[in-house]
């Protein structure tokens, strides 16, 4: 690893709130998107001449389309309760990384152009004209927000800075200031069907290779079927699961579980991506277009049930938005929704999370484990933000916290939670969500991981924890890259189904 060009924060027992350092992260600028990908998203790729009016118009449009944005722009009282809640502020001390200050970057423009006092007495209410510098600030600081919604938990009005960041990025895209990383990934999904740009034949090869590996390892012919028409279950998983480490270990875990349950299931080469970066830039149409691939694949394959693999933002979109975007769920009474509902098996939640599926099997006694196989690990669980604060599992609020932990306890003997103020709904982001997971933002990623690293270090010191289990492809990629900066080995990061995979007993057939 080449030495970092920035100072890696020092870990401490608790995460302390730093004194503000103005401009500390102003230099962080993610690479701008180029022509090809922006064109395929339908956005300009360099600053348009009419950027000013375009930006204000777009803002006006968003304000009448999104109640959240509208209310959040007005309601903030500048109480300051959110100021110490963002991991990027805690890790960088840059005051513009305080949620309210991040919102104010947009709010000052909103006040200037859309409110009476801002038009008459801008200086009094902190209203400012939209300038090129403002846009640069937006670009910088809206790409230092992982849309993790931690601030929203703590705001007395639930103001969700993620919604504002999304609106900010959408406006930036509209004027030609897109971000390379998210733009290229979305373009790849449009063209090939997954974030990694892995075409169908390559996927098939990969799956065959994995089948051989599993058989060599266990002596059992666990299958990883692709494009099987008439299969009962469609498993949609982040494409990173197909060949990134440690993601693939969880993929093997899903396959073993499905095998042990005797399920009829398949992947789809057309819908080979659960992730949906459309969320990150807050563009409804993009998000819908990406999500539609899953609906189309489900209809094409005739599956009765849809299960989603370990991925945070993908699960939020699947759980909370698929029904809205694609009619994948229940309760819709329009022809579009009904077409899919007729096909789905109403006994199951649609979509289901792989953890819901596995936990159900465990409760019914279908799966057998040798827990001692995980005894070399002392495990903790990192709640991924989109799962924790944007979704649910099971029937009860908070099922997203208990179900993955229950699975871990069922497959391993040594489990310890991190400090309560760093897990559950209070969980700290990995630092790499929502389009931050790119090398050009390495400093933001490393510093943003500080609160999580402090909490992990505390249980590592006190309880000997040596493994952080998680259920998010982005968290996995982020942590494996970032924990070495803090002196941990990347093998300490892995998936919940990786633990399942280690302990599950498969019957020879």
């Amino acid at each position, binding site marked *: 690893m080449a030495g970092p060009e920035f100072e890696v924060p020092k870990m401490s027992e608790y995460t302390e709130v730093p004194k503000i350092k103005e401009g500390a992260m102003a230099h962080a600028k993610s690479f701008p998107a180029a022509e090809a990908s922006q064109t395929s998203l339908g956005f300009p790729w360099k600053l348009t001449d009419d950027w000013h009016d375009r930006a204000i118009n777009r803002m006006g449009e968003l304000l009448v389309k999104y109640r959240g944005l509208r209310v959040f722009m*007005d309601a903030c009282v500048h109480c300051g309760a959110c100021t110490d809640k963002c991991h990027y502020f805690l890790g960088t001390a840059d005051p513009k990384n305080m949620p309210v200050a991040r919102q104010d970057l947009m709010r000052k423009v909103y006040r200037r152009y859309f409110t009476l006092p801002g038009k008459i007495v801008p200086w009094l209410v902190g209203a400012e004209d939209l300038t090129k510098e403002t846009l640069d600030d937006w670009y910088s600081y809206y790409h230092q927000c992982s849309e993790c919604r931690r601030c929203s938990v703590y705001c007395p009005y639930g103001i969700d800075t993620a919604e504002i960041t999304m609106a900010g990025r959408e406006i930036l895209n509209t004027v030609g200031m897109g971000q390379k990383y998210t733009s290229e990934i979305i373009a790849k999904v449009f063209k090939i069907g997954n974030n990694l740009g892995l075409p169908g034949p390559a996927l098939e090869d990969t799956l065959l290779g994995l089948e051989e590996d599993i058989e060599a390892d266990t002596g059992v012919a666990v299958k990883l079927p692709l494009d099987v028409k008439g299969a009962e279950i469609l498993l949609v998983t982040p494409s990173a699961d197909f060949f990134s480490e440690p993601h693939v270990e969880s993929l093997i875990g899903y396959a073993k579980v499905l095998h042990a349950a005797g399920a009829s299931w398949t992947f789809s080469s057309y819908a080979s991506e659960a992730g949906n970066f459309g969320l990150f830039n807050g563009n409804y149409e993009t998000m819908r277009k990406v999500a539609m691939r899953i609906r189309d694949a489900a209809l094409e394959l005739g599956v009765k049930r849809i299960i989603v693999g370990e991925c945070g933002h993908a699960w939020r979109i699947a759980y909370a938005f698929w029904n809205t975007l694609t009619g994948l769920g229940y309760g819709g009474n329009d022809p*579009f929704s009904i077409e899919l509902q007729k096909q789905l098996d109403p006994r199951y939640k649609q979509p289901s999370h792989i953890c819901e599926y596995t936990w159900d099997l465990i409760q019914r006694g279908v799966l057998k484990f040798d827990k001692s196989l995980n005894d070399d690990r002392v495990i903790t669980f990192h709640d991924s933000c989109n799962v924790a604060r944007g979704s649910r599992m099971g029937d009860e609020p908070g099922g997203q916290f208990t179900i993955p932990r229950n699975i871990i306890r069922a497959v391993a003997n040594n489990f310890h939670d991190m400090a309560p103020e760093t897990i559950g709904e209070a969980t700290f982001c990995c630092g790499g969500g929502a389009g931050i997971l790119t090398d050009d933002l390495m400093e933001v990623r490393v510093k943003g991981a500080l609160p999580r690293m402090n909490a992990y270090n505390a249980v590592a010191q006190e309880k000997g924890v040596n493994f952080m289990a998680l259920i998010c492809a982005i968290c996995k990629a982020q942590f494996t890259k970032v924990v070495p900066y803090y002196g941990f080995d990347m093998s300490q990061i892995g998936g919940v189904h990786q633990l399942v995979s280690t302990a599950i007993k498969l019957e020879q057939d």
Partner: protein
Amino acid sequence: MSSLTVFYIGLFYFATFVLVAGLTYRIYEYWKTPAPLSIPTTPAPTTRTGAVFRVAREVALFESLFKSNKWIWVFGYLFHIGLALVLLRHVRYFSEPLYSFLVFIQPFGEYASFVMVAGLAGLWARRFLVDRVRYISTPSDHLILALLIAIGISGMSMTFVAHTDIVNLKGFVRGMMTLDFQPLPTDANLLVHLFLVALLMIIFPVSKLLHAPGVFFSPTRNQVDNPREKRHIAPWAAALERDNS
């Protein structure tokens, strides 16, 4: 009738109009703006009743703020509970007959003004003492606090220092309500108090005081967590679906 009385009558009609019309318009705007996606901050209630209770807890207890920051919660809660009692106490200047409830809360209302001002002072102190809060404060944040404290102190000066002629004041207020205008007592502290109150009413619909209606409309708090069971779709999104599915 003195020109002073005429001025105050005009001022209060204007302030009342701005407050009522402005708030109605703002609430209508919030109401008609759709929330296209299901975005409650989870864990969230899975039933409508649960969501109503969640918002009620935010309004009555400042639940999220309590989780967030105990100092702001203490000061903020003191201020708002003080304000609520003080406002209730003021109903007696408008209401005829004088219900026994109003008489009952009278002493609490009087002392609540101390609580209110103490809370405000605490909140204001934070704007100077905590570097993060200092950074985000705009002049208007300071001025609103100054305004509320000035209203509180001018009011308390009449309750506890130099009593004003309450009977005549009530005549003036009822006069405005029944279009049978009566002269306004001319004590300086009353004039200041009333002027500032009118100002507060006027800025209400164009300032951050919109947090009061806003809290009821915040989708992260008032939505039900049931997206797999119920299809949640905004009119503009449904139109988009008809056009390109």
